[in-house]
């Protein structure tokens, strides 16, 4: 442990506090806004003291949004469920496809293997807007527009390259001889993959899956264009709060709080794996 003087520790503490305040403030502010009505939110100057109300959350959960112009139906809970369903299924499909592919790319060099791997990675380079128009046209022709199936398919653009490349690095880190030792001990190629490679790459796979989940959850533009109201995730659903009678800041905040809670909880829970997984697997020469 390096030795630090008192003054250094104080300065470091102050710096850390500033950083934490800077990054946490929006979340704190949104959290506070979610318990206020539009009236109190828009007061100038803003007040830290207010009378908390659960009206926003009630509106979201019951699906009835009261505005000055009347009652509006909103599908927030439906959107939340869509988000969960789309993200979980997409990541599951990506893991199912990506992990064996990553293993193949890590262990078997075949003609064009690097090119294929790179092509998959390049899906992440292209701005989503670039592929959206042709994709929409195709999807409409194929009848995939506004289906869960189609959305999950498109979500593979987000999840698959991420999982493939992170997990591949992880598999490459496992000395091939460990697998050889297992195979020479009388086990098949597939048993080796299942019993040796998968468990050893476990943390990396978990990290990649988690990261892919967060990316899928946060996706906006694909779902905006390719899905209509009943298939939309929360990121798109939040647009419904911009109503003809004004922007419903209170409900938006409550919606944000509800929608970031799952990813935040997941990230906090798996923080250790994330850092370990990413730094061990991906950052290597």
């Amino acid at each position, binding site marked *: 442990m390096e030795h630090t003087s008192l003054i250094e520790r104080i300065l470091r503490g102050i710096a850390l506090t500033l950083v934490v305040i800077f990054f946490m403030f929006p979340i704190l502010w949104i959290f506070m806004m979610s318990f206020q009505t539009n009236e109190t939110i828009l007061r100038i100057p803003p007040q830290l003291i207010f009378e908390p109300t659960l009206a926003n959350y009630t509106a979201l959960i019951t699906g009835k949004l009261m505005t000055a112009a009347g009652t509006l139906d909103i599908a927030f809970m439906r959107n939340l469920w869509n988000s969960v369903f789309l993200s979980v299924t997409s990541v599951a499909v990506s893991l199912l496809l990506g992990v064996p592919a990553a293993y193949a790319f890590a262990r078997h060099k075949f003609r064009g293997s690097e090119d294929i791997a790179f092509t998959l990675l390049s899906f992440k380079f292209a701005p989503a807007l670039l592929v959206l128009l042709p994709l929409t046209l195709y999807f409409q022709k194929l009848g995939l527009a506004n289906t869960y199936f189609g959305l999950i398919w498109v979500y593979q653009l987000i999840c698959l390259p991420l999982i493939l490349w992170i997990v591949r690095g992880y598999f490459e880190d496992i000395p091939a001889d460990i697998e050889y030792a297992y*195979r020479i001990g009388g086990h098949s190629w597939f048993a080796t993959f299942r019993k040796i490679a998968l468990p050893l790459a476990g943390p990396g796979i978990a990290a990649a899956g988690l990261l892919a989940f967060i990316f899928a959850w946060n996706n906006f533009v694909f779902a905006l264009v390719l899905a209509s109201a009943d298939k939309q995730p929360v990121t798109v659903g939040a647009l419904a709060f911009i109503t003809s009678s004004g922007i419903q800041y209170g409900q938006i905040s409550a919606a944000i709080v509800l929608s970031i809670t799952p990813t935040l909880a997941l990230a906090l829970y798996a923080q250790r794996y994330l850092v370990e997984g990413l730094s061990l697997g991906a950052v290597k020469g």
Partner: protein
Amino acid sequence: MSPSALTISEVDKFYGPIDRGVHAVKKLTMEIARGEIVALLGSSGCGKTSTLRMIAGFEEVSRGAISVGGRQVHTLPPVKRNVAMAFEGYSLYPPLTVRENMAFALKAARLAKSEVDAKVASIAKLLEIEDILERYPSSISGGQQQRASLGRALIRDADLHLLDEPMGQLEPQLRAVLRGRIKHFIKERGLTAILVTHDQTEANALADRIAVMEGGVLQQFDTPDRIKERPANLFTGTFVGEPPMNVFEAFVAAAPGKISLKLPDGLSLDYDKDAFSAPVRDQLLSRDRVMIGIRPYAVRRSKDGVPARVSANQWLGDQTHIAADFAGGSLVLVEHDRTRLDLGAPINVSIDPKNLHVFDQASGMAISHGMELA
């Protein structure tokens, strides 16, 4: 049933496309009998590990065939070859303890638990790892991991045991003890083993026969004694033996009743014609240039010898290594007593024709060893 445990015939290994990639092993042919211990000896990159991995099935055979116990295996997956292997990088399974790692190797054999336990216990005793059986690979030292890995290979009842640098990480004392025990263990059970090593002491101590490899080519495959006494070519001569053989280029000159080997710097080794056996003499006289090799142990200091000048003098605790400037190069001699010689001191050395190894100047192939033709 064929008596040979392993037959390698005309095996080539290319990394990359055949005939255009790196040619790691060239037309290797060797036969190993049941119950034999063979060492593949050579420097890094000589093709010895490639050979071992082709036998195990981790590298494809580019050309040629490999049979284990008379059964062609070079197209089979590793699982069907029935060979055991200890890896240079240990390759223990991290989530398992040392005991589980060793027992795991027996899983495919489906033995009773008591039998597995007994086997693990006896191997652990042999390799002195009883106290770390319950520990995990990440918490033990390199030497302990290496012994665990060796144990995992030896515990199996395979047609062939492949050991890749099995003792590289061990301390010298332990290595010496284990060499003896492992040899005894292998011999007692009649196992056939191939070990890859760059340590000639290990090869000499463990192996019945040594295969010396260089540049992907098998240079010589013979017993340790014969490799030392009758090296097939200059490479084996200089590679095996510590300190290495002294080699000089010599011109053969004949005078009535004499044969002289003219060395650079105007030096000459003069011998009576009758000091050589007739066939060796004929061989010498039929050429004008040869390479001569002399083991450092065979160089004697004597008053009437050829002059040399001491350039280094090391007492190793049980022998003295003296290096001398000689014939435009360096000559090393070994004496068993502690010899005190100052740097630059003049000495005279003589070489008995019985200890002379003669090699062809162009090809490096051996012509004669002492009184016998190669």
